[in-house]
């Protein structure tokens, strides 16, 4: 992480002796398991917790007695933690951690669902999965924009502004032209506009990239808010009633239980996001462009020596990133809602968190975005069943997880070496 900037700061000591990373994490899991078994088990009721495979209470369901489920899943977490503490081989670390955490979540859900008001002891999985993806959409686009930027060495704190500008110009030009496709292109252009500013000022004028990102967020907030009040509020029919993309059903795939209705009856943005993750992943790690991008982000001087045009590549990637984020913003205004002031509301910063949590890789960013989307969706669900867990604390989860990640508590995250450092040829 910042070891280049602050070499003196104690880098997390190399694990030595008994307390290896596996054991430390195992201890945490053990505590979580204990908590789940005892507390969740005690609080859960004897009601059946139903996880229905549909959008409502009807249809097939996975059922388990609330108390039994909470305790059993808690014990699984406990067992995973104990195994890690006992000295599990390193290659089993990730699977054991995953099993432990998933079981913990399930134990929590068993308690929550069984303790819900009578008649609501069910969790419609289709809704949850769909909501997770829906809420994760801007995060996926945003964090992909971050990947493109930061892999080539430009810090992108302006994701929020790019999303917002994309959402705004998508809504504005979509409404004026009456065409979703014009709106989509306009959204990409709008996002690129913000990132063009980021590129010019950070690459040409060497302004600090974090500073520029923060200022651009405010600029985007101001411009869109101003034009929203001046244009969209006065004449919403003309300027803020963009047509929307419908849902496209993919034959066969949409018949898969749970995943089918949730994933394969979505709109263009959902498919685009998944395709983009794949494309960017392959492009970044399997193509010449990807190799150059990564080398420019890690060691621009070396890349320059080999004939890579560092600044040109940075310009192109940053602008491309803006287009991706802009489309992400349009996933709101061209599919779900009409534009409102500050409608992104911090999603850009969660996308930044997802980027960091996903360790600057497209697939990692996707998983992190889905995790954050799930936390968000869970908060909505728990609110609907009058849970005693305040939604605000679930909403904090992405941010807390990111702090834990950068503090090195769940493995180290490392940014591209030249991320944020302007390159001066010479």
């Amino acid at each position, binding site marked *: 992480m910042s070891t280049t900037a602050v070499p003196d700061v104690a880098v997390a000591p190399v694990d030595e002796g008994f307390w290896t990373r596996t054991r430390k994490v195992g201890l945490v899991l053990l505590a979580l398991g204990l908590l789940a078994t005892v507390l969740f088990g005690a609080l859960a009721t004897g009601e059946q917790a139903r996880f229905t495979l549909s959008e409502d209470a009807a249809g097939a369901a996975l059922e388990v007695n609330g108390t039994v489920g909470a305790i059993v899943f808690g014990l699984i977490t406990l067992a995973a933690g104990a195994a890690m503490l006992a000295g599990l081989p390193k290659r089993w670390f990730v699977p054991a951690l995953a099993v432990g955490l998933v079981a913990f979540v399930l134990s929590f859900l068993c308690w929550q669902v069984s303790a819900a008001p009578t008649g609501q002891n069910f969790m419609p999985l289709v809704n949850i999965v769909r909501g997770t993806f829906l809420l994760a959409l801007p995060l996926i686009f945003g964090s992909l924009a971050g990947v493109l930027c930061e892999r080539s060495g430009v810090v992108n704190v302006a994701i929020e502004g790019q999303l917002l500008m994309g959402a705004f110009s998508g809504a504005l030009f979509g409404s004026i032209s009456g065409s979703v496709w014009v709106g989509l292109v306009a959204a990409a252009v709008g996002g690129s506009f913000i990132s063009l500013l980021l590129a010019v000022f950070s690459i040409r004028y060497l302004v600090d990239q974090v500073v520029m990102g923060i200022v651009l967020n405010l600029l985007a907030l101001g411009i869109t808010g101003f034009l929203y009040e001046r244009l969209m509020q006065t004449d919403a029919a003309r300027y803020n009633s963009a047509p929307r993309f419908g849902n496209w059903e993919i034959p066969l795939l949409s018949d898969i239980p749970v995943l089918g209705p949730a994933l394969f009856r979505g709109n263009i943005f959902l498919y685009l996001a998944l395709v983009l993750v794949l494309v960017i992943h392959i492009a970044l790690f399997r193509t010449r462009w990807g190799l150059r991008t990564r080398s420019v982000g890690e060691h621009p001087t070396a890349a320059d020596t080999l004939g890579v045009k560092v600044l040109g590549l940075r310009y192109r990637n940053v602008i491309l990133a803006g287009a991706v984020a802009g489309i992400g913003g349009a996933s709101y205004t061209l599919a779900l809602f009409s534009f409102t002031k500050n409608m992104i509301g911090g999603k850009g910063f969660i996308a930044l968190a997802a980027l960091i949590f996903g360790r600057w890789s497209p697939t990692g960013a996707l998983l992190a975005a889905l995790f954050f989307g799930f936390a968000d969706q869970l908060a909505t669900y728990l609110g609907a069943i009058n849970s005693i867990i305040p939604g*605000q604390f679930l909403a904090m989860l992405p941010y807390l997880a990111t702090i834990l990640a950068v503090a090195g508590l769940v493995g180290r995250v490392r940014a591209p070496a030249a991320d944020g450092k302007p390159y001066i040829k010479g």
Partner: protein
Amino acid sequence: MTNSNPPAGSPDKEPASEEQAAQSTLGNTERAEAAATPTAPEQRPTLGRLFVENLWAANTFTVTLLSLVLAMVVGAVLMIISDPDVLATYAYFTARPADAINASWTLVSEAYANLFKGSVFDPGATTVNAALSPISETLTYTAPLVFTGLSVALAFRGGLFNIGAQGQAIMGVVLAALAGFLLPLPPGLHLLVAVLAGAIGGAIWGFIPGILKARTGAHEVINTIMLNYIAVYFLTWLIVQNGVQDPNRTDAISRPVDASAQLPRLFGDGLRAHAGIILAVLATWAVAWLLNRSTLGFELRAVGANPDASRTAGISVTRTYVLVMVFAGVLAGLGGSQMVLGTTAAALTPLVVAQIGFDGILVALLGRVKPWGVAMAALLFGALQAGGNRMQSYSGISLELVTVLQALIVIFIAAPALVKAIFQLRAARAARLQTSLAKGW
């Protein structure tokens, strides 16, 4: 650096006003006179010419002023393109250009006139209160910005980028408000306790990224961004809890702070200016003293300039980082606490601190991360905010334009090369215009 100027013209001391600029020019002239008289008196430039030339050089003052002008030009363009009536006159621009120009001029000049009337002085004011009102409003908006600006600036000087002033201000306002309506204390003491509570709230929220940076190397930019949002969610959760929420209200608003914990007003009950601005001046002085006169300030600047060298010299970098962040948190917390202890609001709401933390970043940059510069920058931003309110209600120009102006000013001053290029300024004598903190994650 070949710097032959007298101290007044050295890069460290920008002329804060035209008078000062003129003075430094005067100094130059005298020197030039002394040097030039024996050899070639006919080449001696006139005083006026030197003044103009120096004013047109890319010094900090000129760049700041021109950035303001540029921002206002962009703002004017935004106003024109968003006004359908004015825009309609451009449809026949070639036939009757006067129409378009007149309509645009009326729109823009009225808006900016209201911006001025709302923040500095309204020539139409008839009573003393009305005449003082713009200044009072400006000072009300300035006070918290001074604190958050100082918070960011102090951290900058210590080599840390405190994006968390927003979160620290939120924690400050939370604790200050809790102390303000939960503790039954006599006036005076109550205010003191509430202000202190605000400082503690900010300090805690500054300590976390500080200690994480010092112990694990986790980057403070990421952590402070995350802590900002955690603070927001904590605030929205807290407001609706029993004992905190206003029992007479169903929406998210807390009980009001007791009168005994309110900062006293400066110009009587009719005007909103409160003692917060005095605290702000004191805080500016204190931070200036801390930075320039104290041992801690020296260590802090040393660490900011070069952590390696500082460590070699025996300065504890980790301790400095933690202290810097705690101090930055204290300042931001104090700024936040004014949002309920002052006259802006008396109760917690989800948006009680508005944007003061993020604005603080802009203020710190605009003030060139120097305490008194920050205070001046906060004054400008406070004026823009106060004037923006009037512009919104009188000219119907959305307050958001102020955000645009503020962001643009900072973009331009952050890239002096751009301003120089646009206005064809002479090469900078003061070479320290670049805001260079680039360190990356």
